[in-house]
């Protein structure tokens, strides 16, 4: 069987959020919300996901664009492309960490069509799951990655619960350190979810990676004033510079007075099913001088409690070094 031709589906192109929500609610499990399509179309071509109805959100103009919000922060429409975020003067000036993270996603062409909403809502990249096997995440009752032979070099250090997949997003850790608020619209109305709680692990629901319920759409991401103009750090380590998902990435935001770290938020991606906020590091460095010694301690405290799988021990020193560099170089 060709794995390149997608199965048939009906395509809907609503031009309002309410229209999209109504369609997605009606279609339920048979529906699929489509943004840039870079993740979705792969699923369809592999025939692993076979929705009957696809709702293309790209025609909804209110979901696009970057604007200043009333509280002095910035609101980013969920369908804003990663290229637009990377180039936005507003984001580059005040929330540099997000612009840097967006610029490190995938390849130029993917950033041109890939959206921030799609980037944070993309599904797990575990290759066993992507291959279409009946693993826990796919509704089955075993994990193929966490076995003696399983190839789990890219998998998690923390929070394994049957599934060992990681959060693949580069922008997610940046949104967590900026304390972004995710605006979600669904059949029951609108709600606002802090970025840190937007992502969920397998212990909460093993079949999805975000709090989005059926029929719900992520409409916008609000960046509050709190971390505007902070000192930022973002670094992504991947096997290749283009396309590749992170082996580990790190995002940090901090305010420094004199040489003392007043406030800090720091988060790592690709080490857990959700972007991992490193609260231990935050506790260790807050109020401390920003120097090599503090950075070293921060690195050590970052990796406490890590439980590596067979092939991903290297992620422990990698995470430790990235945290050290983030504290030292931000």
């Amino acid at each position, binding site marked *: 069987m060709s794995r390149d031709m997608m199965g048939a589906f009906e395509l809907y192109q609503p031009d309002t959020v309410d229209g999209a929500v109504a369609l997605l609610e009606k279609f339920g499990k048979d529906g699929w919300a489509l943004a840039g*399509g870079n993740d979705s179309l792969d699923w369809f071509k592999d025939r692993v996901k076979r929705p009957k109805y696809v709702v*293309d959100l790209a025609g909804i103009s209110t979901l696009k664009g970057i604007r200043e919000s009333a509280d002095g922060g910035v609101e980013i429409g969920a369908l804003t492309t990663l290229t637009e975020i990377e180039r936005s003067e507003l984001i580059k000036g005040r929330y540099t960490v997000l612009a840097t993270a967006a610029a490190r996603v995938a390849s130029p*062409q993917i950033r*041109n069509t890939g959206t921030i909403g799609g980037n944070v809502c993309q599904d797990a990249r575990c290759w066993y799951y992507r291959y279409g096997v009946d693993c826990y995440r796919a509704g089955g009752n075993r994990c193929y990655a966490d076995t003696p032979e399983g190839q789990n070099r890219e998998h998690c250090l923390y929070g394994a619960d049957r599934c060992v997949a990681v959060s693949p997003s580069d922008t997610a850790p940046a949104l967590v350190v900026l304390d972004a608020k995710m605006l979600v619209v669904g059949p029951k109305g609108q709600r606002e979810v802090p970025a840190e709680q937007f992502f969920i692990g397998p212990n909460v629901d093993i079949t999805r990676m975000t709090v989005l319920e059926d029929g719900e759409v992520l409409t916008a991401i609000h960046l509050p004033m709190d971390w505007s103009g902070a000192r930022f750090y973002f670094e992504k380590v991947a096997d290749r510079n283009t396309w590749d998902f992170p082996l580990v990435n790190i995002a940090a935001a901090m305010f420094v007075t004199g040489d003392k770290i007043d406030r800090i938020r720091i988060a790592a991606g690709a080490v857990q099913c959700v972007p991992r906020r490193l609260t231990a590091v935050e506790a260790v460095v807050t109020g401390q001088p920003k120097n090599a010694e503090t950075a070293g301690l921060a690195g050590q405290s970052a990796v406490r409690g890590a439980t590596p799988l067979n092939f991903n021990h290297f992620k422990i020193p990698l995470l430790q070094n990235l945290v050290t560099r983030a504290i030292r170089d931000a």
Partner: protein
Amino acid sequence: MADDRDDDRPPFPEPRYDVGPLSKATSRRNFIKGVIASGAAVSSVGYLFTAGCSRSTGSVGGVERMLVLNVNGQMRPVDVLPQETLAMTLRYRLGLTGTKLGCDRGECGACTVLVDDVASYSCSTLTHAVRNRAITTIEGLEGPNGELHVVQQAMIDELGPQCGFCTPGQIMSAVALLKVNPKPTRDEARHAMSGNLCRCGAYDHYLNAVMRAADAGDRLSETRAPV
């Protein structure tokens, strides 16, 4: 550039694969392209699209299959399945086979086209999603008299391609770059071209070509400036 010229066709310009019968085409390849373009039944279209064709999308709100696509400055009416990618439409409905399909997963760049002057993977774009956008393929780069685009000429001068399969995509990425940044540094060019793989490994030749095209474009605009 996109063609392997192994026959006795005249040098560029090639005949354009517009809607309508092809009068000048002599080769088998161009004959087939002409048949596809004129909308007549041809077997390659049949075998590719039978899988989803039987299903009607008549329900209220679903997209109409007939649409008019702005490709290379022409309005092309075409019948497109809801699940059809732009690469499929361009190659198998419109006969624009200069756009290549490598991986069909957004992982190689061979299918790169411009959508409103922005480089995009046509394999990872639904045709219905670009209904009102301007699409430019490698076929749309040639001048009114069939002269090569400055990037195409630079690719020849710098011996850019080896096997040539990734070349149309590489050229489209370079064209997109030069539209927004006519004088890129080598690093900027490398960054802009990073979404296109070349398994021959001719990356440096491609980069040389982009830099040459930037220089040539510069001279071009200088000479044109007084007009």
